């Protein structure tokens, strides 16, 4: 990782943004995957449920890393909003997961698809908040 003398914003802490974009991509992938499943009028597959769990675990890891860095002194322009998003974002997929398990039809797939989109949008917003210049 190239390290500039003064460093652009985010330069000295690339872990969160890169990891965040990976989760964002994974969330979109899960949304497309379950979306196709819903369009085919099928309930979610076991592989999709495992995929949702993997994305959720990655999310939780990211949230913990972010909160640790905030406690460690990372400055944010909107700390309250960031923390609120951090708490909110891990709630979405369990909801979709639960509904997809209860509803073994295409509507269950659509529920998981929707919550995966929500995760992707919220992760994008988290990344924006993380990288927003302080001041």
């Amino acid at each position, binding site marked *: 990782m190239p390290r500039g003398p003064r460093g652009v914003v985010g330069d000295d802490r690339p872990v969160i943004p890169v990891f965040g974009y990976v989760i964002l991509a994974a969330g979109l992938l899960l949304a497309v995957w379950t979306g196709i499943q819903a369009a085919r009028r099928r309930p979610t597959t076991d592989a999709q449920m495992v995929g949702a769990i993997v994305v959720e675990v990655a999310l939780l890891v990211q949230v913990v890393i972010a909160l640790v860095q905030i406690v460690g002194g990372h400055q944010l322009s909107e700390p309250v909003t960031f923390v609120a998003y951090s708490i*909110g974002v891990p709630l*979405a997929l369990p909801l979709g997961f639960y509904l997809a398990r209860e509803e073994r039809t295409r509507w269950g797939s659509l529920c998981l698809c929707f919550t995966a989109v929500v995760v992707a949008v919220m992760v994008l917003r988290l990344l924006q908040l993380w990288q927003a210049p302080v001041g």
Partner: protein
Amino acid sequence: MAEHPTINQQSDAPDEAPPTGPRRILIAFYLVFAVAATARGVVQIATKFDQAPLAYTLSLISGIVYIAAAVGLITERRWSRPLAWAAVGTEMVGVIVIGLLSILDSTAFPHDTVWSRFGAGYGYVPIILPVLGSMWLWHTRPGARRDD
């Protein structure tokens, strides 16, 4: 229309059963918006209430309306459907009135609520949602002919 038979051995709800599926996706939508709008309202009121008291109060109210709709959809009591109707109706009026106000009087009305510009900040879902909600409530009303 006959759905394909599910081979899944876990399947305990046959597809011919009353349509709980659309209700579940509505519940997902409403719960997500309940959390989003309420949290937004609380954060705005807690951190910068003085900047736009009206808009931020509206944020919180919209959150409460979404919570009411979600409760009305999840529960199956005597008051569930009236509650859902009231919440969906309030939501429809709210998103149209706030949407119009935010466009006609954009300087006086900060773009800071879920319903501003008809919910453009949330992919226009806030204006689609009450339509879907009322369609579902209408289709599943007691005594409705079931011809599907």
